[in-house]
């Protein structure tokens, strides 16, 4: 194992971007990292709010119209290698909001997240469970370690 992958495996910085979900996923994710019960830091996962520091971007919510550009801008600001975790059913496929206008293309919901930025891991659930989020972030490790 090279020193690069060794160090990457021991410090993963996660940034959370909420794009208009119902708050349930956001709080479960923040909870999973802040609460001493789950304590993501023991798995070497750190929460950050600075895109320049992040390795993994966790996105929740169906990406509403006003959130599209901020999401893209934040994604651009993260230095490579970067990976995106889409958490929650809204982020995966738009959730209950996807078909808001039936067959007419919706102007409000731009999501799912895949339409906007490449997604590396998908964590299902409405709302996601903290354990699943941790598992999702950790499941990205092989990809993250092998990236240049």
């Amino acid at each position, binding site marked *: 194992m090279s020193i690069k992958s060794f160090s990457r495996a021991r410090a993963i910085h996660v940034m959370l971007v*909420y*794009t208009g979900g119902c708050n349930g996923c956001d709080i479960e994710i923040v909870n999973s990292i802040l*609460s001493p019960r789950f304590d993501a830091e023991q798995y070497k996962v750190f929460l950050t709010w600075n895109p320049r520091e992040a390795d993994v971007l966790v996105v929740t919510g169906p990406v509403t119209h*006003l959130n599209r550009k901020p999401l893209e801008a934040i994604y651009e600001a993260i230095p490579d290698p970067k990976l995106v975790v889409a958490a929650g059913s809204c982020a995966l496929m738009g959730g209950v909001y996807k078909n808001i206008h039936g067959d007419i293309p919706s102007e409000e919901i731009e999501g799912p997240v895949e339409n906007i930025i490449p997604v590396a891991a998908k964590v299902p659930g409405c709302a996601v469970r903290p354990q699943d989020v941790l598992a999702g972030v950790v499941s990205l490790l092989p990809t993250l370690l092998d990236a240049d």
Partner: protein
Amino acid sequence: MEEKVPRSNIIETEIPMGTVHPAALEPYRVRLFVEDEIVQEAEITIGVNHRGIERIMEGLPVEKANSLTEKICGICSNSHIWNSCRTAEIGLDIEIPERATYIRVIMGELERLHSHFLYLAHGCETVAHETFSMRVFYLREIVMELLAMIGGNRVQYGCSVLGGVRPRCDLDEAKLQRLKEDMDKIEEGLTGFAERFLADSILISRITGVGVLPAKQAIKLAVTGPSLRATGVARDLRTNMFEYDDFDFNIVTQPDGDVKSNLLMRALESFESIKIIRQAIANIPEGKVINRDWEMFDTDIIESYIEVPRGTLYHSYALESGRVRHCIIRTPSMANIGAMQYACIGDHITDAQLSIVQCDPCFTCTDRAIEIIRR
């Protein structure tokens, strides 16, 4: 203190924050207009997470629409589904079994506990007191597990259905026993936290007098819920709700309307919630949990108000051949936005986010197109 006036009208610069910001748990944009780091004016822009739930609800069968209201908010999901069911039950004259009412009250109070704990944790996090925030999150985890035990999911439990509660949410002896034991645990933990919180003179001096919202101004801005009670106005809709007739509880108020009053008020109100849950466990009647014996008919517009953890929630719709028509939902944060903008004035920028957090924002609830024009 009657009314706050900005120190001067000079606006030196504008600092926008958001839509993604560590102090905010949800996307919104706030523009702070400051002079020498003192906020003179604040403008909160919502609508960032407008998804248009009413648009989806329109024309859906009422049962489906009810379960959809849960997706409005991940914090007070139970309140939305409760009030939505309640709206239809009022319109259709459905009699709810007593046991179901009790279970709904238990769920409502558990949700109040988890919402208030989240508020306390988030408030402590915003003043950068990580240790207290983590301690509250630890307590909150007990409530979350109880909610998961009753409803089957940690966030959206889908407890209420038309005519009562889902049979899965019925409470048997073992569940009641666990509920009872955990209430003791929560009370013990919360007492310890409240004592430590009050004994921490650094923290108390840090949050006293920050984000003041005078009572007069609060009434003028039509603030609801705990944010109003923290200014000293004893107004709680639970006293008018028939569900709470059997329960004995106090309305907690705090005098000052600053961050300290708000945080303390939530902590003290949590004790009242524990009290209500204990009464409910002791007196829960036997019987069915759901009444399926009702008929659908067309109704006029039905309205229902309930007290949810963050204030007064309003649901209204009409029923037409079993489908929802003309749906309007008004959430507490809608009224509290004015309070948030007002509370920031005159505080340091570091306190501005705290003053916004102080009013318990839930913009995911609030983001919907509503325009009520009274003529």
